[in-house]
């Protein structure tokens, strides 16, 4: 992981923990009271794998949801799952802790990056990072190119491959409409064990470090999402190293940083393309002028290879004018042109 200047500045920002924690209590009602980005802190050790968040998510997304009891089925934990068009969040079980008999549950969904690669990648602006932190999608703009899926470092967006006419990119939208009316995301609302904590992102970072400091036996000293991929709205606390829970080891620079630097470099004030245009134009102009004077001098002597070839043409000098009788007479006419 590279320590970038941006990462350093963010680390500085978390120094004022006390004030940040006050911020958290101020928004304890869950109401986003400012344009400051909100977030969710996932306390992985607190998760009991009840999968109620999966139920609440599907219900909030307006899917046809099986009764909540169906989500008590633990057999789904047999294999690691990924989000799907019909399930924006899934809970996986792993047994990687110090005590192998104790399972660890991790909730997988969109992390709502601070600088989302999907937003940068989308050529028609179908993705948007809202001020409240949510990364939302507009299907009416979307062309269905799926470049967002290529770009996302967390492999979150999914696609309606089986919809022939109006397929959509599907992912968690942070319950953007609930956020807009001052509510918390459905998964946070239903979580029974304080595994999901909603609040201002800055306050959550302070809270996370506070938790780590107060209960060092419970948590490793790493807030996943604080810096990963340029920082994310969803962040995680864990008791075991994140790599053991299938979290990706990502640099703290947003993936879109480099592509945007290159792209904006090539198009800086349109100077490079226009300069190339001008340079090629100059080369063309010089070549033409030289050629004009040369052909004037040597045309009759036949030194120019192009002229020489056509001088031997029995039909006379090259002419751009198309004559019907020259062609389409028969297969032989074309070949006998010399």
């Amino acid at each position: 992981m590279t320590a970038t200047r941006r990462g350093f500045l963010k680390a500085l920002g978390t120094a004022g923990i006390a004030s940040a924690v006050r911020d958290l209590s101020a928004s304890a009602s869950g109401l986003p009271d400012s344009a400051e980005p909100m977030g969710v802190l996932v306390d992985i050790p607190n998760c009991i794998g009840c999968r109620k968040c999966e139920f609440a998510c599907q219900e909030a997304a307006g899917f046809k949801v099986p009764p909540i009891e169906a989500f008590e089925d633990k057999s789904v934990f047999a294999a690691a799952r990924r989000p799907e068009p019909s399930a924006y969040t899934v809970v996986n079980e792993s047994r990687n802790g110090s005590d192998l008999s104790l399972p660890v549950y991790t909730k997988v969904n969109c992390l709502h990056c601070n600088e989302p690669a999907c937003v940068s990648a989308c050529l028609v602006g179908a993705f948007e990072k809202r001020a409240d932190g949510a990364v939302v999608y507009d299907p009416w703009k979307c062309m269905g190119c799926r470049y967002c899926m290529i770009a996302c470092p967390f492999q979150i967006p999914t696609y309606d491959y089986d919809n022939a006419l109006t397929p959509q990119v599907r992912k968690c939208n942070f319950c953007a409409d609930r956020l807009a009316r001052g509510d918390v995301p459905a998964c946070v609302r239903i979580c029974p064990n304080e595994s999901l904590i909603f609040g201002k992102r800055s306050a959550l970072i302070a809270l996370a470090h506070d938790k780590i400091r107060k209960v060092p036996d419970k948590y490793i000293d790493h807030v996943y999402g604080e810096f990963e991929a340029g920082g994310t709205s969803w962040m995680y606390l864990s008791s075991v190293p994140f790599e053991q829970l299938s979290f990706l080891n990502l640099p703290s620079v947003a993936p879109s940083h480099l592509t945007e630097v290159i792209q904006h470099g090539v198009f800086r004030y349109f100077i490079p393309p226009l300069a190339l245009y001008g340079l090629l134009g100059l080369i063309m102009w010089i070549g033409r002028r030289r050629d004009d004077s040369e052909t004037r001098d040597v045309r009759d002597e036949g030194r120019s290879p192009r002229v020489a070839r056509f001088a031997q043409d029995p039909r006379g000098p090259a002419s751009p004018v198309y004559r019907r009788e020259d062609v389409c007479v028969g297969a032989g006419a074309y070949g006998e042109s010399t």
Partner: protein
Amino acid sequence: MNGHVLAQPVPRTLATPGVFTLLALVAVGLMVSAHRFLFGLATVTNLDQQHPWGLWIAIDVATGVALAAGGFTTAALAHVFHRKEYEVIARPALLTALLGYTFVGLGLMVDLGRYYNIWHPILPGMWQGNSVLFEVGMCVMCYLTVLYIEFLPVVCERFIGDARFPRLGKLCAAINRLVAKTMFLFILAGVVLSCLHQSSLGNLMVIAPSKMHPLWYTPILSLLFLLSAIAVGFPMVVFESLFASWSLRLKPEMDVLSKLARYIPAVLGVYLAFKVGDLAIREAFVHVASWSVPSAMFLGEVILGVVVPGALLLSQKVRNNTRMLFVACTMIVLGVALNRVNVFLVAYQPPYATRTYFPSWQEFAVTIGLVSALILLYRLLVTWLPVATPHGKSRTG
């Protein structure tokens, strides 16, 4: 600009076994495409949630764009750098590029989930200047327009002096005069637009560093794409010209083509130097010796696609031998195609993928159908419009 060239339609029948074979392949591709449009991508492709891009993006779009580079490289050589002896191949190269880009668009339509929104990037309200794909899309759209304008004289000449349509002929003559005066603007624009989107096409995958195999992931992927596009331009022109002359039973334009081939080793050398240098700087050479599928694909792309044909073309004997020239240029064309497949498919290894992607037969059918349709249209247009320039004696007529 085209006044020096006496291009003419090639009177050849369309009723050949090759044409019928191509028609059959087009029909299969059309049927699979119809299936895709009626029942969705899931029913015909092996794409999944971890592999959003497949054969259609790698071949129909990325390789299609790369192999259409013969258009701008030849235009630059013949018109910008004023090597007039190459004007005879400028029109066939232009037609190849025109058809190539047209089929890139068609191939993309099959792949896009909401193909009916393909025009959205032209709406200023949706412009997204941070997106590499936006730049690629806009440049390709503009370049396709430029290609059609550059092709206008070819169509116009067909009707000028046509006794059956005197009015159309006059109109065409007027258009031709107008286009001829401004053509240099479009030729320059075509070269600049090509440089821009050929390179940006490589920049596309730079956004996914954590998913890309280190043999191909490099910040200078856009530069490598531009260099390889320029490098494949002339080989593609040679390949297409020799292929067409055999198919149409014309004498190969060997005097022009072997001269053109002199440039190829130099450009390939620059490309190779950057590719190897980049690998050395990133210390990614260990992955070459890992003897995995990626390392084999990488070696195939570099040795069979760049080193061997580049070395072959250094020899004048090879350049003057029709068959050897064709073999060498075909290797380069396949090498660059393999590079695009490698970058977009082989190198793309998302960490959460549970299986590897391999295209379904339907995906192959659509791609083969598109290529067949392109070849058919090329043949049709060459026999109908003044594209090729008569030269030497026909072998059979």
